């Protein structure tokens, strides 16, 4: 699972009012190269919750992202920033670990890169 997906995921256990962001427990992170696409990055940028994203990138061992959300204009001009954004969003994969609901502490295990988001009957 990449941080792109992590940034969209939210815990939907019954009764939970703020299930975002899921806290990451990283046991194993792998990097896979992907060709950069500026159009995609510009299109997705406004939808990214920056704080959750930059926090998550640090937990994944990447420390190059600013903590504060950058001005959208950097997407037009700053190739270096785009490269970092791309790397953190699409090239870091959480292979093993867990996602933890910020409200209930419920742990969703991540194995072979796949988060198990199945809820128990009493969580639906």
């Amino acid at each position, binding site marked *: 699972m990449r941080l792109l997906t992590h940034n*969209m*995921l*939210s815990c939907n256990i019954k009764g939970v009012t703020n299930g*975002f962001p899921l806290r990451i427990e990283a046991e194993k992170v792998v990097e896979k190269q992907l060709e950069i*696409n500026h159009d995609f990055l510009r299109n997705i940028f406004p939808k990214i919750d920056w704080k959750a994203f930059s926090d998550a990138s640090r937990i994944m061992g990447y420390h190059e992202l600013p903590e504060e959300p950058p001005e959208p204009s950097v997407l037009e001009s700053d190739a270096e920033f785009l490269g970092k954004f791309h790397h953190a969003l699409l090239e870091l994969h959480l292979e093993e670990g867990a996602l933890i609901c910020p409200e209930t502490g419920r742990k969703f295990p991540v194995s*072979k890169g*796949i988060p198990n988001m*199945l809820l128990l*009957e009493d969580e*639906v």
Partner: protein
Amino acid sequence: MSSRPELQAPPEIFYDDSEARKYTSSSRIAEIQAKLSERALELLALPDDGVPRLLLDIGCGSGLSGETITENGHQWIGLDISPSMLNVALQNEVEGDLLLGDMGQGLGLRPGVIDGAISISAVQWLCNADKSSHEPRLRLKAFFGSLYRCLARGARAVLQVYPENLAQRELILSYAMRAGFAGGVVVDFPHSTKRRKEYLVLTCGPPSLSTAVPGGKGEDGESCSDDESSGDEENQTVSISDRHRPRKKQKINKKGKDRGWVLKKKEQMRRKGNVVPPDTKYTARKRKARF
């Protein structure tokens, strides 16, 4: 035993390791799923600007549908309830991110972040109660409600489904409408049992020009609508039902519903697969007033 997988076992049991392998290694299945996915993407009608979008593949299975998304240049997140299917997707090194999850429990995604969703041959599974705790209506409600919320306003979801019968199609569609979607069903090749395919084409947000349901495909490329004005029985035409189009007023002349009207109605019901009594000399015969 029924040939419908949906009636044999719950999806996570039916799609076990051996079925997942069989499913994915069949070139016939791969070809069909690729075609369905291409058509779903076409119906999704994303802006033609070359910008890769973030899409959802619901019931992504082993990634056959997702591969079509990748080929079209988009990023995707796939959700499936079967670990075996997802394992095959891993072996095939699909480009999308995979989630093990049950759409009937609702999608755990933030509001308004997804640019579009497709689902190929999966949503009809929600109509079955596979556990005592399963209530299909509640599961449909949770699924469509959460799908509506996670889509960006104006975004579309295209769900290719194999409903067991007309009632099941109506049930699925009614829960989509209740969640707030506009849209309807596009039927490709409606008069061919083999090639007939149904797509729910749903738009997130209030009805507008852009939510009008597009035409389906027929042998002759013609399209026509599914209501009273529906044309030529001989032709391989295409049906569309669009819930946001005002229902055409039935044309009833002063004499009331005559034999021609009744015969036409009965024919329509037959085409929909309903059991209709045969046409005889008694059909629509006037009854005596004292009857």
